[in-house]
């Protein structure tokens, strides 16, 4: 592992860091992985490559949409994810996966549920924004999730 602390030989540490291709153990490259992206998406697939920037290559990727206790999977194929968009990368434990109480539904249904959820969120956000504006507070909006699960919509 490349846990290098700053020291007098700063030049030397830089050389060491650039020689390291990957900072994961080998076993991580054969398991199913879950990736959380900054835009709120969840991707599940086989991690084929990772580098020091956390750029990822996922195979047989599926985009999983969660609404309440239901979820839907959209097959996406091969994904190359730029590291800066990665929030979290987790290894899926196959035993734990079969244990969950979540119900899988078809893609059309989950997309509809997601649309309704986002609609109600936007309405709540609008009323909140209006209330804050009346009190003289204007919150800046961004395209990045500030708080996991709360995405600001334009």
């Amino acid at each position, binding site marked *: *592992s*490349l*846990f*290098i602390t*700053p*020291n*007098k030989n700063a030049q030397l540490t830089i050389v060491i*860091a650039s020689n390291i291709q990957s*900072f*994961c153990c080998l076993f991580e490259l054969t398991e199913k992985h*879950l990736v*959380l992206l*900054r835009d709120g998406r*969840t991707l599940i697939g086989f991690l084929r490559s990772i580098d*020091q920037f*956390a750029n990822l290559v996922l195979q047989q990727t599926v985009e*999983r949409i*969660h609404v309440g*206790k239901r*979820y839907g999977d959209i097959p996406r194929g091969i994904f190359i994810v730029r*590291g*800066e968009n*990665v*929030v*979290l*990368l*987790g*290894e*899926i*434990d*196959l035993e*734990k*996966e079969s*244990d*969950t109480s*979540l119900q899988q539904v078809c893609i059309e249904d989950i997309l509809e549920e997601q649309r309704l959820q986002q609609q109600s969120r936007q309405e709540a956000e609008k009323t909140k924004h209006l209330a804050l504006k009346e009190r003289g507070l204007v919150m800046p909006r961004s395209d990045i999730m500030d*708080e*996991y*699960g709360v995405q600001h919509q334009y």
Partner: protein
Amino acid sequence: MCPLCGWDVLVSYLICGTLHSVDQYLNIKLTDISVTDPEKYPHMLSVKNCFIRGSVVRYVQLPADEVDTQLLQDAARKEALQQKQ
């Protein structure tokens, strides 16, 4: 390894885990994840270990009584002097 390894970590009031390792980018590896509210955030239920990219971490809060601030100040001062030389 860093002296904080093995500590319990709570991420964004969402994910509980044990700190496995930290790297130069302050990427964090956690083991034995559990979700604090599985009803609200069911995504992570089947994940045991995870890697968190350092750039998405806004801040890390350490319990005040676990940190020897005097020692920390002295160490930081010493390192600053060493770097100057």
